[in-house]
């Protein structure tokens, strides 16, 4: 099954079994191992990547369904010596421990901030019509699709707040 897609700005041609998930295509075929497989069933969020700017669970998508799509993985957000604001904030707030769920958390948070900017409400928004606030409650609810067993949750929330403040200037 041939598929052409863009990953972290690079055109990639895949030739993989149709059963190959986007997650396994990234990890095994493109050797982008930053994206993690924690459950393979959309129940943990470790495999979160951005597809055309939106966060999805890459384990619940077939690579062949992404012909022409633009994928961004954790490797595309920054590098160890050139971290994105969110990556830097996760580092300084200790928004991780073992680090396994972290790429998914950071990809998720990156898109989540755009969702708030776009005015999407959440389950905890009091008013569906008003622009949501960037409160701890909102961040926690919106990040609940990313499980962290080490439980860096409080630090993740603080990291996201700091990065969001920087983003807003």
């Amino acid at each position, binding site marked *: 099954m041939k598929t052409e897609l863009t990953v972290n700005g690079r055109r990639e041609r895949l030739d993989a079994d149709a*059963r190959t998930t986007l997650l396994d295509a990234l990890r095994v075929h493109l050797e982008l191992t930053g994206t993690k497989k924690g459950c393979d069933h959309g129940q943990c969020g470790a495999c979160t990547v951005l597809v055309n700017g939106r966060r999805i669970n890459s384990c*619940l998508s077939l690579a062949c*369904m992404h*012909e022409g799509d633009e994928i961004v993985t954790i490797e595309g957000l920054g590098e160890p010596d050139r971290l994105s604001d969110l990556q830097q904030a996760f580092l300084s707030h200790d928004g991780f421990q073992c680090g396994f769920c972290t790429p998914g958390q950071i990809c998720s948070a990156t898109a989540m901030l755009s969702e708030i900017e776009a005015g999407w409400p959440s389950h905890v928004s009091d008013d569906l*019509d008003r622009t949501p606030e960037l409160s701890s409650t909102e961040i926690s609810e919106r990040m*609940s*699709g990313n499980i962290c067993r080490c439980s860096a949750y409080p630090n993740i929330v603080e990291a996201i707040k700091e990065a969001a403040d920087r983003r807003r200037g």
Partner: protein
Amino acid sequence: MIPFDYQRAASAAEATGLARDGATFIAGGTNLLDLMKLEVMAPSRLVDINRLDLGGIEDTTGGGLRIGALVRNSDLAGDPRVRSSYPVLARALLAGASGQLRNKATTGGNLLQRTRCYYFYDTAMPCNKREPGSGCQAIGGATRLHAIFGTSDHCIATHPSDMAVAMRALDASIEIEDSAGNRRSVAISEFYRLPGTTPHIETVLKPGELITAVLLPPPGGTRQAYRKVRDRASYAFALVSVAGVVEMADGRMKRVALAFGGVGPQPWRNAEVEALLEGKAPSAELFEQAAGLLVAKARTQAGNAFKVPLLQRVLSATLNELTKG
């Protein structure tokens, strides 16, 4: 996951034409791929419908909304018309799954979600829904997720959707296209089938038929609420949920629509309960009576008996919220 033939359809006609024996449409795939990995579902062909032009939300001439089958859950929840005129639907969507899953899951796919019954998910277990005639291992087993209404001796599974519960309360109808290009519309009340002796047949969809849209009637001047009760604060399926739509006039409930999640094999409604409430002034006694009527025919297992008192309390509280002030 068994090997399959993958086909990307460019039109509804092509899609329905490709959807022959053993084929399944794939849209978001968040539930289908989950089940295919476990070989709970094993289609021999996947017809990818993501490139079909079914992603729009349009106003209907009658003052309602036509929601394309491929509209993603997050887009539907974020649509200004849905947020202001159908808040019960926006709330239900936002209470479901996670941000990532809502970005992928579609309106049509959400209606067709399979049950979360533990025994359905484990291919080592007998399950009449997965393997007709093999038996139901959930009966007498772990039943926290299971139904108290509409069950049979063959299946006690619930429909897991939040979205569909809101749509049931909103009297949505489902637009379906067959391979000949014929379109029909089915009321959501007629869309799902009770398990009976054939729990593997879940809807009235015929082989090859494609959901193209969901139609919402005009909202009217109604008050709406969706309340979901679950074990963790987020990212969990409903133990019970209530979607309520109430229209008040002169201090009385002129029209009442109530749908329930987590309790039935389909988004559940009870016409008797609504009839009891309609035309009456809200009162705690009336709500209690309605709640009692609702659960009168509940059939429980050891693990889900708590849903009876829980559902009654949630119904009363929701009615209270919808009618106060």
